[in-house]
């Protein structure tokens, strides 16, 4: 293995980073024409990264130190880069002159961090990659607007993010302590996956490490009780950046959780199962319930973002069922959903970005009132995206929810966790119904509201192009879900060694008689008292 392996395997990330460097340098140019080049450069860099992924990015057996390129990596790369294109388009006109270079440089860095997260095979790389995603987003929030709200949101986001990173790192240190290595998976060297292959292998320290890491990542995905920052930050940032916040850190968090659960071979102590179960149920409920009270669309979508993390956690809890496809494979369902969510969320925020009300940003339901009479195209796009968020056919959001819930109810009835997962799916369905109440308020404001509000389109063709792409993707993925479902199905193949298994399933399937594996594990691994 030589440097050439690095260069080819990491070529998409290199393209992004080099693009980021160039963007940074154009940002300090004295020539205004050069300064305004940042957005095209970023767009080109993402296109180059896509090309590199298409040419070099295939899963390989050999590992590079700290990195592993699996089908999951490929999937995450594709969906990240494909979402990055509309992301850049939506943000195209946002940063003021003098901040464009920084803005798009940081955006590219964050995207590169996300693809690196998917490739990480080492706790340290994982941590660094996650922070590479997060730290730029703190700054992007501050850059997005010139008023104090954005600064306040940025400061809050930064401090809480730092706290969560500390918790995450603390958890990783426990994992290292328990296994004596930071390597996640390897055929030869000592690694975490071997150490945690069975519940007995996972000591109390391992459990605590996993818990703390999960807690730290819960911040990234906006799960309860780490969700409190979400509405404030979403509201404070400008709409185009908010659309980004719903995708990059969230996906990074989910990918990291998948990585951590993979090293346990989806076979975790009861306590962790119930923890994630509770967090999922609370996240859905709290998110949706609090969204009911909002009149500010951005805040509403922020709480909806929290709720959607809850739905995705269901898929995570079901775990992979290799080769079954998203109807039964929770991870494939989640991977499907996260991409769809990224696009529909971005689409909704893109509509907000594409409008101004007397020069002010459009944020409240009142601002959107009667949109269909003024700009029907934007109103239709908004309706498509909101229907998708609501999980209503004919949009991809509907299939996403179908996949998630059907994977939850299709767990083997012999499984200990069959019943709880069905209950969780029911909670999810009830929550979808509650959610319809506030999503429909957006729709009714756009379609049926009086047209007293005087929205003006702004942002030019770029935002509209991105918006069109997002809404078309919602329809297209409903008509041909296999475009995304098949890659999602193959993305889970690398997640377990033993074929079909579920987070819950490994307990009954993998270990005969160990029904209360968590307690058994603690008994053998913990200290005598």
């Amino acid at each position, binding site marked *: *293995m030589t440097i050439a392996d690095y260069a080819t395997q990491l070529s998409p990330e290199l393209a992004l980073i080099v693009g980021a460097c160039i963007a940074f340098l154009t940002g300090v140019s004295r020539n205004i024409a050069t300064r305004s080049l940042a957005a095209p450069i970023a767009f080109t860099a993402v296109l180059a990264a896509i090309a590199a992924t298409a040419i070099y990015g295939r899963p390989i057996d050999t590992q590079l130190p700290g990195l592993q390129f699996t089908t999951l990596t490929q999937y995450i790369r594709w969906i990240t880069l494909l979402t990055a294109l509309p992301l850049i388009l939506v943000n195209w006109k946002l940063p003021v002159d003098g901040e464009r270079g920084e803005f798009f440089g940081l955006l590219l860095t964050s995207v590169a961090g996300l693809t690196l997260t998917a490739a990480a095979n080492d706790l340290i790389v994982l941590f660094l990659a996650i922070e590479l995603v997060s730290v730029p987003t703190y700054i992007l929030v501050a850059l997005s607007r010139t008023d104090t709200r954005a600064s306040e949101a940025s400061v809050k986001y930064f401090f809480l993010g730092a706290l969560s990173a500390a918790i995450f790192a603390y958890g990783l240190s426990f994992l290292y302590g328990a296994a004596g290595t930071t390597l996640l998976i390897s055929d030869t060297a000592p690694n975490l996956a071997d*150490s945690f292959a069975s519940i007995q292998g996972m000591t109390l320290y391992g459990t605590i490490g996993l818990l703390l890491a999960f807690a730290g990542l819960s911040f990234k995905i906006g799960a309860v009780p780490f969700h409190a920052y979400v509405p404030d930050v979403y509201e404070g940032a400008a709409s185009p950046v908010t659309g980004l916040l719903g995708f990059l850190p969230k996906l990074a968090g989910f990918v990291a959780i998948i990585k951590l659960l993979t090293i346990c071979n989806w076979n975790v102590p009861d306590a962790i199962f119930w923890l994630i179960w509770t967090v999922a149920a609370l996240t859905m409920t709290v998110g949706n319930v609090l969204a009911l009270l909002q009149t500010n669309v951005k805040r509403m979508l922020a709480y909806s973002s929290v709720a959607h993390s809850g739905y995705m956690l269901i898929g995570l809890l079901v775990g992979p069922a290799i080769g079954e496809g998203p109807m039964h494979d929770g991870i494939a369902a989640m991977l499907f959903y996260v991409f769809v969510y990224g696009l529909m969320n971005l689409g909704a925020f893109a509509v907000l970005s594409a409008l101004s009300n007397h020069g002010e940003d459009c944020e409240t339901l009142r601002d959107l009132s009667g949109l269909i009479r003024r700009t029907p195209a934007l109103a239709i796009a908004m309706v498509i995206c909101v229907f998708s968020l609501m999980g209503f056919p004919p949009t991809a959001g509907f299939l996403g929810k179908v996949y998630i819930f059907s994977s939850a109810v299709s767990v083997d009835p012999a499984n200990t966790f069959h019943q709880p997962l069905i209950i969780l799916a029911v909670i999810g369905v009830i929550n979808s119904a509650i959610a319809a109440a506030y999503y429909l308020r957006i729709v009714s404001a756009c379609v049926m509201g009086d047209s007293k509000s005087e929205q003006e389109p702004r942002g030019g063709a770029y935002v509209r192009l991105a918006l069109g792409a997002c809404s078309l993707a919602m329809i297209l993925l409903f008509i041909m879900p296999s475009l995304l479902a098949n890659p999602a199905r193959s993305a889970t193949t690398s997640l377990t060694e033993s074929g079909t298994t579920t987070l819950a399933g490994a307990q009954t399937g993998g270990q005969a008689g160990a029904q209360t594996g968590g307690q058994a594990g603690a008994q053998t691994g913990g200290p005598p*008292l």
Partner: protein
Amino acid sequence: MVVVGPSKAQSLQRYGSGVVSGMVLAVCRELRYLMMAWSCDGFERYCGVMGESSLVPYGAILVVIGIAVSMGVGALLIAHLVRPARKGDVKDSTYESGMPTIGDARQRFNVRFYLIALLFLLFDVEVVFLWPWALAFFKASKTGEPIVTTGGFSAGSGTLLGAMAVFVAFLLVGFAYEWRKGALEWD
């Protein structure tokens, strides 16, 4: 929208008791485990069935921490015990190199101090990466053999030099950026 500030500091106090009790409980439990494990023969068991993995080497760190804490606390404690206590306005005032004190110590510093400190820290930390690279490069160029890591990655001295060139290039981009941005100017 509520702004950041001490106006809500009472919420911290409200939660504070919960946090403290929770953390204290957790810490106590950990200490209890540790002490028990240490005292009896079960330390290996406590550390789990991880084979080579063991927390034994970290015992020394615990000792160091203990000594450090006891020295700090001890010094203050001894000083408190042995010093004569004479109260007075002058005696109680803050000592500031013999000058009369001006205002409160808790005042705002110019943000540039932080900026400079941050930049110093950044470039200082980069040197940490240069050090092991220099060792590896020295070895590779001296022996002519490529360096092979545990992960199976092999690199000759040329590759190493190239890698460092890339590293420094990235660093230079940051340096050029901060220079042009005016971060190094005081005014």
